[in-house]
């Protein structure tokens, strides 16, 4: 069954949508959308380094994305304006990644695949990475759910309840780096942030609790993945951007329904 490239594409896209859902909620609630972008742009640098050092791509992207997340978080805590800093980090990482890629000998890298994903070239190993990474993310967030939520509401309430909000933040950054590394092949470095934020935004109007929002984001993400793949197949459009477009349509429908109702 896994020998069919279309089956692999569907499984990969659905896996990434499910992995992104619980994290997408936190990205929205903590206003980390641009933080997510900076982290995913760093993945390009990760790919270049992985090729240069001949280590697995997944490991390269994971490590560089994680390093980026911690660096930005650290600088933000030092009082630098978050918005400005993220602007520097996000664009800087993208540019540095593109420059680094050009240095890798033989130009074995398909730049468009890196930026926008190459879902139809998904291998069995990629599926393993996506579902394995997704399971780890889900387990991490499920395990720390109440603590993560408390720390998201207020660092002071967390401290008073014996929770270290800094540790919870590090856990979210680890989860973010995992999702970035897993999703790179599906939607590419430029659109990973979209996969985190848009399904969560589509779920927001109908959610009364954080749990409902995450469940809604998972449903919206999976529907967008299937719709996007179908559209890519029928209209011969790039798969990653098509998935994101489908998610935007769901968001628009959800928001409009709510405004009417």
């Amino acid at each position: 069954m896994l020998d069919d490239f279309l089956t692999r594409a569907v499984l990969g896209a659905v896996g990434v949508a499910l992995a992104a859902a619980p994290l997408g909620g936190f990205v929205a609630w903590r206003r980390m959308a641009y933080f997510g972008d900076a982290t995913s742009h760093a993945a390009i640098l990760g790919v270049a380094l992985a090729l240069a050092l001949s280590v697995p791509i997944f490991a390269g992207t994971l490590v560089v994305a994680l390093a980026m997340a911690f660096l930005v978080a650290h600088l933000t805590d030092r009082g630098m304006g978050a918005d400005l800093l993220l602007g520097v980090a996000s664009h800087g990482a993208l540019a540095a990644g593109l420059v680094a890629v050009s240095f890798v000998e033989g130009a074995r890298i398909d730049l468009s695949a890196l930026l926008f994903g190459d879902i139809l070239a998904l291998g069995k190993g990629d599926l393993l990475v996506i579902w394995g990474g997704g399971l780890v993310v889900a387990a991490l967030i499920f395990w720390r759910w109440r603590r993560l939520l408390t720390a998201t509401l207020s660092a002071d309430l967390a401290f008073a309840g014996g929770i270290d909000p800094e540790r919870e933040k590090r856990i979210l950054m680890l989860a973010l780096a995992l999702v970035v590394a897993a999703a790179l092949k599906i939607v590419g470095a430029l659109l990973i942030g979209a996969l985190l934020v848009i399904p969560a935004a589509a779920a927001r109007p109908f959610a009364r609790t954080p749990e409902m929002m995450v469940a809604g984001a998972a449903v919206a993400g999976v529907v967008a993945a299937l719709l996007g793949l179908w559209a890519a197949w029928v209209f011969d459009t790039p798969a990653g951007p098509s998935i994101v477009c489908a998610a935007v349509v769901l968001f628009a429908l959800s928001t409009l329904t709510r405004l009417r109702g």
Partner: protein
Amino acid sequence: MTALITASSLGVRLGGRRVLHDVDFRIAPGEIVTVVGPNGSGKSTLLRSLIGAVRSETGTVTRKDGLRLSYVPQRLQIDPSLPMTVGRFLDLPTPATGAARQAALAEAGAGELPARQLADLSGGQMQRVLLARALLNRPELLLLDEPTQGLDQPGSAAFYQRIEALRDRTGCAILMVSHELHVVMSASDRVICLNGHICCEGHPETVAQAAEYRALFGSGTGGALALYRHEHDHGHAHDHDHGHDHNHDHGSAPRHDHAEAG
């Protein structure tokens, strides 16, 4: 007497500024202590250092082993992207039974709110919900940062009565920040006057007469003191008809220090 929490020669620096220095503080079981001081005098910072949210530059904060404390922040801003019902909020971080949640909400005067969205609450409603959440883990020490801000007049009066009743019933110690000097004077066992350091502290009446206090609060002082005396006279003359028993023995009698020059 074993203190619940002790700060000794505590100093805190925030953003390069010295916000607190040489603060010695302790609170005993069942004590109601109020911190007063002008805006920016470090009241919130003191409470936040006690819960471990800000690192001290000098000195130490020590807690009794296994101390159960609850904290009500000065304000809580909810991001509009976060859907959260009041009932669900009370479940964080420790899950509570529906009955316990309802009881806590009723006790805080917010019994009708459990299904409402947190982000939709008015300031006063939010304050009540925060108090309900603080009551849920049966605290031994309750830290309240300006708990009556945004409460209507009857709500504020009822609040101080609830606090005192809570202390009498559960023996819970209470440390609160307040700007309502006249109420503070009647509702506290001890008042701490803070302005970067502890200017003076002690029994409300003593503090109200201290030069340091008068220097900070000036003209308001006379009125506050008059009210304080009035409420005391009132309580004794009319057989405690408004439910305040100022001669009440709280088992572990609170410290009634005399004001020291800061």
